[in-house]
């Protein structure tokens, strides 16, 4: 019995075609893009901290929306060029005003907690993008918030916007040492009922979260934004039996289960191929899953009833799937 039948899972495949209406350089490596409806229609509002999945050529990537989300007339994202990435950011940087582009409807995976007494936002580098969305929404909705922003001296992306929201209460850090020393006192001195939201490089986020936990913050009040599952490198070979056809295949360590299925002509709906969108869920009949995704809840993972086949693998030698 599956936790939630796969067919009942909301899917992200609904997309819209938008037009690039603005491109601007925020720093030598970061470029911002705005998309609007081609027919001039209003775009759907979105929850602060939401992202869209942008499809360009054969690549799909998630980017945080930087607006507040309340009645947007355009969707704006900031894209850092990652020369060693999968090429997605390079392709994005080639976009020009007037191009049209396919994007998913906004997805919420880093929502503010409406009942929080205070919102403490912490951003490092390009991690400022979802945090800026939160900061703008907090300002528009009159919610209490503060922002700690760590950036390299020459590349404080969106610094002007942050300063105009927070004025002199914005705390800026251009080196890790000064940030680390003030983080400790910031974590000690928040009003009761504060929620913390952090976005930045994985190591940065985990050090902030670890310190907060050490200092007694309950995990329900800590929120962080990942874009990609920590794909822990190649895995081991494993065997998969497809219950409906009786076929058995081997998934080599260098390939994902999704790729292996596609290799024998079985197509599974998919979108991000990174374990975040929830599109590629497959029901598991037997075997334990090595979960590598960010989509399933811990409770669901413990049931081993569903595998997100784009990133996850088998714990032991075998899995039987309801395919």
């Amino acid at each position, binding site marked *: 019995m599956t*936790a*939630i*039948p796969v*067919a*009942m*899972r*909301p*899917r*992200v*495949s*609904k997309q819209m075609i938008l037009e690039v209406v603005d491109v601007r350089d925020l720093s030598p490596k970061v470029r911002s893009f705005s998309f609007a409806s081609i027919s001039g*229609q*209003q775009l*759907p*509002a*979105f*929850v602060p901290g*939401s992202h869209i999945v942008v499809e360009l050529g054969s690549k799909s990537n998630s980017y945080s929306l930087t607006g507040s*989300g*309340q*009645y947007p007339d355009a969707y704006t994202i900031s894209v850092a060029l990652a020369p060693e990435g999968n090429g997605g950011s390079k392709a994005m940087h080639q976009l020009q005003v007037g191009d049209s582009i396919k994007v998913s*409807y*906004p*997805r*919420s995976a880093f*929502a503010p*907690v*409406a*009942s929080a007494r205070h919102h403490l936002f912490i951003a490092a580098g390009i991690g400022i993008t979802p945090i800026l969305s939160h900061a703008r929404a907090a300002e*528009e*909705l009159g919610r209490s918030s503060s922002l700690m922003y760590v950036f390299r001296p020459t590349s404080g992306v969106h610094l002007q916007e942050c300063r105009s929201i927070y004025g002199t209460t914005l705390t800026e850090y251009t080196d890790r040492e000064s940030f680390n020393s003030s983080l400790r006192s910031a974590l000690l001195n928040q009003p009761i009922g504060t929620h913390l939201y952090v976005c930045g490089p994985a190591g940065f986020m985990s050090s902030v979260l670890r310190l907060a936990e050490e200092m007694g913050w309950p995990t*329900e009040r800590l929120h962080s934004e990942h874009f990609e599952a920590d794909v822990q490198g190649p895995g081991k070979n494993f065997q998969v039996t497809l219950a409906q056809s009786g076929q058995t295949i081997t998934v080599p360590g260098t390939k994902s289960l999704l790729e292996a299925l596609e290799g024998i002509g079985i197509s599974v709906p998919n979108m991000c191929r990174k374990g975040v969108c*929830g599109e590629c869920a497959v029901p598991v009949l037997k075997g334990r899953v090595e979960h590598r995704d960010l989509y399933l*809840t811990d*409770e*669901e993972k413990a049931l081993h009833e569903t595998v997100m086949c784009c990133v996850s693998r088998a714990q032991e030698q075998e899995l039987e799937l309801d395919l």
Partner: protein
Amino acid sequence: MNVEMQSAGSSTDEIDFQEVPTFESEVPNRISGFPFPFRDDVYRYSTNVEPALQLVQTEAGSWGDRIIDIDSNYLEELNLRETVLRLDPTRLQVMSHMRPAAWDAITTVLPQMAATYPDIMKFERQGNQCRWQNGLQDIDLEFTVGADETLPEGPLHFLGSQIQDDIVLMDQREGSLWLDAGLVTFAADWSVGFDVGMRFLEIHGPVPRVHEERIITRAHQFLLRLQPGEQYRRTNWTMTVDRRLDTSTETYPEWGKDRTLVVDDPTLPDRLHLRVEVQHLIKLPATGALLFLVRTYLASLREIATVPEWRTRLGKVLEELPSDMAEYKGIDRYRNAAAHWLQGGD
């Protein structure tokens, strides 16, 4: 026991903010538009959630092609809601952090309603400035999103004065849904004043058989996964004596005894009503709060009996229903009498 998860099918992902279908705004009669809920002669709980806006053909007509459904009882039910609220203001609950969600509900529901009934309603928005016209109530009103004082009684009360549905708003946090706001005047034996501030799983604790089947936890997981803009629906049913919409816990002393008295009443077929709720579950776009709209429909046994297939089916369902479920639904006292009449007795 055979519990069926109703599959939502492959078109479940269709979200559309702009293209709300339009309909003739003629009002269907009560029976042709009645959402008769039984597809089988046996009823069991299931996570019967399906995408909203799908037309369902019934033996008498059809329903389901709109989120907000207005019928000939519109003004009467809205007046009744105001009366209930005046007598018992606790039927309206808004925890302060839910104010943005209440506004989100307004700016989601009113445009839908205007698109469904373009001849009599109109919604315009420019930034936070909105204008709402409702010909059925002679309303032409301007208001500002987020500014509670621009709507006579605040956003949630105002929304409740425009639609026949009861309204519940759930906040999502800590991996749970919390019932943190609502305007509920037509509850079927529950009370928003009691449930406000509780988690979804707490509210659904005492339903018999439901925990064993994990139906509620599944529903909860499903709802947590909804993405902004998605709209689903389900139906629920019970029975009520007389055309009484307000059967909340608070007014139990007024209606509770009728459950027993109706059994020997020769007018039972006219007094006893099948009560069907069409519940819409809408994940709101700007706040991610979950909006539950509960629209209640009542049809007497005699009205049901005008459709022969319904008469037979309801008779069988009532006869077969296990006693713990009948008791939970509060229909155990009279369901045999009702089944007997439907099956041709007198």
